[in-house]
């Protein structure tokens, strides 16, 4: 099954509550997927800092002194905020790629969850409640975010197999469904130079979108491409630095419901994910049409 949620705020006054609202939405869908859960939060941009979210199975060993070693390696200041098995590394935006490489060289066991100017990604094996508690997601502020609770069908139940998948700066994707041509698409993307960390079909969809956007398409155009180039069942919810998009395959058997008010756009696999949002009783609520791209940008 899997459960997916997304929330794109229009009203700035709700931004301090983004983490709490998104957590509530995701926890309400726990019984759609008990294997793992994850959430991506887009926070406020900072002119002089970009972020890399990293994960380690041995955080005490891998995160200790990483900031000073990393700063020495890339020659600019680095800060690290540790949250359980994850940590957010902050450094100068121009040094982000260099920092990624240095992290992998200094600590080969660390996994990179995502990177960009604003995104932070937390995902682990376990139920949504446990995952949002572990990373204190409810206290996080932001402009938009997406979340996923996974019932594994296509690949292993591991931290890396959890969603969201991030394959480009500030880009990430959650997926309900299964793709049938992911191996072929993966081979094509590998030829283009994309790198993959898992055998997961969803990672291919995320990389496909990153590749399309790297070729100059906007989020809407990239999502349009999934309809002809990806085969299988899907409802995708996607975040970019300033955007939020939704698309369902032409058969559209995976459930989806959306709501829009003056304050937000929200997505849930089921209506019950939306029931605690402010003003939901008067929101425009609709089921997204098959093979139709929806997207919003700030």
């Amino acid at each position, binding site marked *: 099954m899997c459960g997916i949620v997304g929330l794109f705020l229009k009203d700035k006054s709700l931004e301090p509550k983004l983490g709490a609202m998104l957590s509530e939405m995701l926890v309400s869908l726990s019984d759609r997927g008990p294997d793992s859960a994850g959430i991506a939060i887009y926070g406020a941009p900072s002119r002089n800092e970009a972020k890399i979210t990293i994960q380690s199975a041995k955080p005490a060993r891998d995160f200790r002194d990483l900031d000073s070693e990393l700063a020495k390696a890339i020659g600019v200041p680095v800060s690290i905020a540790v949250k359980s098995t994850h940590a957010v590394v902050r450094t100068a935006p121009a040094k982000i790629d260099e920092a990624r490489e240095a992290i992998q060289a200094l600590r080969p066991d660390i996994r990179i969850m995502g990177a960009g100017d604003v995104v932070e990604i937390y995902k682990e094996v376990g139920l949504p409640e446990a995952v949002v508690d572990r990373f204190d997601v409810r206290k996080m502020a932001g402009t938009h975010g997406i979340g996923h609770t996974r019932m594994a069908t296509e690949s292993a139940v591991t931290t890396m197999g959890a969603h969201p998948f991030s394959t480009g700066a500030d880009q990430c994707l959650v997926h309900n469904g299964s793709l049938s041509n992911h191996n072929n698409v993966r081979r094509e993307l590998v030829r283009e130079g994309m790198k993959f960390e898992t055998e997961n079909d969803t990672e291919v969809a995320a990389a496909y979108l990153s590749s399309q956007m790297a070729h100059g398409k906007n989020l809407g155009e990239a999502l349009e491409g999934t309809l002809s180039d990806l085969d299988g069942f899907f409802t995708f919810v996607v975040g970019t630095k300033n955007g939020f998009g939704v698309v369902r395959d032409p058969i*559209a*058997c995976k*459930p989806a*419901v959306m709501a829009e008010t003056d304050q937000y756009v929200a997505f849930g696999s*089921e*209506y*019950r*994910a*939306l*029931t605690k949002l402010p003003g939901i009783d008067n929101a425009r*609520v*609709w*089921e997204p*049409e*098959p093979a139709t791209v929806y997207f919003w940008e700030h």
Partner: protein
Amino acid sequence: MPATKLSKAATQDHASRIFDLDVSSLRELNQALHNLAPGSNETAWEVLHPKGSHSVAVGVDQPVSIDVRGSVGYYCGGMNSGSTITVHGSAGPGVGENMMSGSIIVKGDASQYAGATGKGGLLVIEGNASSRCGISMKGIDIVVHGNIGHMSAFMAQSGNLVVLGDAGDALGDSIYEARLFVRGKVDSLGADCIAKEMRPEHLELLQGLLDRAGITGVKPSEFKRYGSARTLYNFNIDNADAY
């Protein structure tokens, strides 16, 4: 479920027995409905705060009326036999799935496969229905005030589907014997589904359905009828591509 616990969960007033799903569990509600004996005086029920819950009022088999105040999730009123369920909100996938008799009225919209495999009774959707409305219907009558999505009445076997708005792609794909009446446009017809003549008996049947659904100001003559061309009943190699 012991009666004492149930009486705590539900409060009784003059008119109806009220279940607040913020206070009591869905299982308590459904068990109380299943405990109804024939001839029970508890004929009016109200369900508060359904919050998109799954399986609200499934398997009811007594002629009671149930008003659900809010939107429900999957399978509301599934297998209904004789009760009248009104959803004062929208319904998730599979509302009224496998209904036997009675009626379900959805004041808002319905999600996918509304009325699937229904054998009898009446399902009225006052908003729009989504894809696969009436899939494999087996005798149920479905009346939709708004539009229906793609692949509706797929493999429909018996019963009537009335749509006041438009129908999506592949209406009536692989249909057997159900009658489909659509007032608006149909994006496309599925395999073996064709437009058919509206004869006096169909106008009469349709008027009866509109009356039962409480619809006024709409004439049966505004609808087109669709049904089975019956070319796929027996396997014929020439039709292989259509299966």
